[in-house]
């Protein structure tokens, strides 16, 4: 599945030796919640793409289509008090962590009522003071930021919280990623880092990105536990990430999860992803995680066809209704904008002209 050509393929992490330990066992309730959130993410993102095509969203639209299973599996295993720094393709994980369809649309459409108030957009949203970090674009940068949140909790004696972030195959080449991973390991932080290895970084295939063949071999180099998940298989993602989160929560130190998958859209909605070979799209990697998950839920009799239809209808209705609402909301008013990057306290002290 991985594309590198290095002869070194040893998987040297402990966890794989041990195999699954049961802490990630998937319950009906979790599976249903995960799947319902995947549906929300998928339907919401389809709407975002349409809004972009019709010129209602400016800038860029970056979708997570095909990556919802992996993304949601991290989001559903987190809870209030945890720290989560999602990346580009984490719409599903965000919703699972507590972000809303409403705030997503507000941010993309630049509503002044959104959490970013039109100051930042699309995937760069968050509520840092609630543990939901707002990514900066510079890849790799959020790994150490999550470390910092966990160090703060340790200082305050708060135990049981976990920090989590996601990164792409391309993002693993950044110096930031390396420094953050190493730091998490040195500090033995309760942290889970999920690598969504979708085989491409924008147009760049993995063999121009790294030569180790298998990114999981990096876990040993940081001295942290590595685990592999099947990136488009919801049950597998829920199990593996469930175990990783449980291990981190139990004080076993940072956990790296590597999952192979494909993104089933372009890098952004401007990109047709024609560089992804047809053979890869037709391989098991190219199977849509939503289809796989649906089968899994039906097989387990965790959901019925009727329920699925009504979920779909409900989510569509919610998305449409929310779009209508947000489109009527006020855009930020430049005349009212507070053109000052200092905090209120800093500014009051500064005596700097405010124009």
């Amino acid at each position: 599945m991985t594309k590198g050509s290095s002869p070194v393929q040893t998987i040297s992490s402990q966890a794989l030796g041990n195999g699954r330990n049961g802490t990630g066992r998937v319950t009906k309730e979790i599976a249903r919640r995960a799947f319902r959130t995947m549906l929300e993410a998928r339907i919401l993102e389809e709407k975002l793409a349409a809004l972009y095509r019709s010129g209602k969203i400016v800038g860029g639209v970056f979708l997570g289509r095909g990556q919802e299973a992996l993304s949601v599996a991290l989001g559903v295993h987190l809870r209030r008090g945890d720290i989560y720094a999602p990346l580009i393709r984490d719409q599903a994980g965000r919703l699972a962590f507590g972000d809303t369809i409403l705030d997503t649309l507000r941010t993309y459409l630049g509503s002044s009522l959104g959490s970013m108030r039109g100051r930042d957009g699309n995937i760069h949203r968050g509520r840092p003071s609630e543990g939901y970090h707002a990514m900066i674009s510079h890849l790799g940068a959020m790994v150490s930021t999550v470390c910092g949140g966990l160090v703060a909790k340790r200082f305050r004696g708060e135990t049981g919280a976990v920090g989590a972030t996601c990164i792409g195959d391309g993002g693993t080449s950044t110096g930031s990623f390396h420094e953050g991973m190493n730091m998490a390991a040195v500090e033995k932080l309760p942290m889970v880092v999920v690598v969504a290895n979708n085989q491409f970084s924008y147009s760049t295939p993995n063999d121009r990105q790294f030569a180790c063949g298998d990114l999981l071999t990096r876990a040993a180099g940081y001295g942290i536990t590595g685990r592999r998940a099947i990136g488009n298989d919801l049950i597998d993602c829920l199990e593996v990430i469930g175990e990783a989160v449980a291990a981190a929560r139990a004080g076993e130190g940072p956990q790296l999860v590597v999952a192979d998958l494909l993104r089933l859209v372009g890098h952004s909605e401007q990109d047709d992803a024609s560089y992804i070979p047809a053979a890869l799209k037709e391989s098991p990697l190219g199977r849509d995680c939503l289809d796989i998950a649906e089968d899994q839920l039906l097989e387990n009799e965790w959901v019925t066809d009727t329920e699925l239809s009504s979920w779909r209808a409900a989510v569509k209705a919610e998305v449409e209704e929310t779009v209508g609402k947000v489109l009527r909301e006020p855009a930020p008013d430049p005349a009212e904008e507070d053109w000052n990057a200092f905090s209120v306290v800093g500014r009051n002290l500064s005596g700097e002209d405010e124009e």
Partner: protein
Amino acid sequence: MSITYLEAIRLAQQRALAEDPRVFIYGQDIGAFGGAFKATKNLAKEFPGRVLDAPISEDAIVGLAIGAAVEGMRPIVEMQFADFSTCGLNQIVNQAATLYYRTGTPCPLVVRLPSGGTPGGGPFHSQSMESLYAHYPGLVVMTPATVEDVYTMLLEAVALDDPVIFCEHKFLYYHLKAEKLPEEALPFGKARITRPGRDATVVAYSAMVHEALAAAEELSQDGYDIEVVDLRTVKPIDTDTILASVARTGRLLVVSEDWPWGGVAAEVIARVAAEGFGLLDAPPQRLNARETPVPYHPALWGTHRPTASSVANSLRQLLEL
């Protein structure tokens, strides 16, 4: 046939690759894909092995270019966005910029920075980084405003023995067009009087030249005759041309899309105040972006950056001083 600013960048690179075997291009997604903006479209095919996809490693990308330059190559680095060059900044300012002074070995490399704001670009895809790099001795910083300049100056950048930060403006990529590309160019480091005038001088560069020209047009309807100077290269700055202009007009407004603190506008004013104090009939003024990150929403962005209308306002105030 008309050539865009972006196509001129591509053609300059094509010519550099064709004429000089020492040239190669390195950056993310620039090979078969042709780059995020398509500035290297087809070049990988046309020059096999000389247009290389890089990993997401801005520090090492610049480091590799430095090592190759030391060995006599002439690398062009494409940053996917100027904003990401902060991740390669250490190599640029501490290794590339210092190499010649420290060791006497030239370091001829070009770092192309897709710069400046566009609607919806937001805080991390809109930055103007010319001042940051111009602060460092040893770096040339170019900021072309026209299709013709972006072509000739990129070729000039490749020919220079010093590291060049090449700030190409994304807002100009598609809008700006020319009928044909010039063979001749102004000398290196020379500013251009884009529009002659006698009532006030506007010094600008890159996308702001066009806002300044539009403002000058607007003021011409009120009977004012505004001179517009395009700096072209902000390091070195062509102080002579600026002083000569101020000598004619007596009034100076400097416009920059970058933040004010220590930016190009501050530097130009500091020079004119020190060297051309007596030429000034009124206090020299500047108009910059607002002092916040570049906002995402187009309505905010349109107020954050200087525009024809805010330049015209500033000019009206200056003319009344």
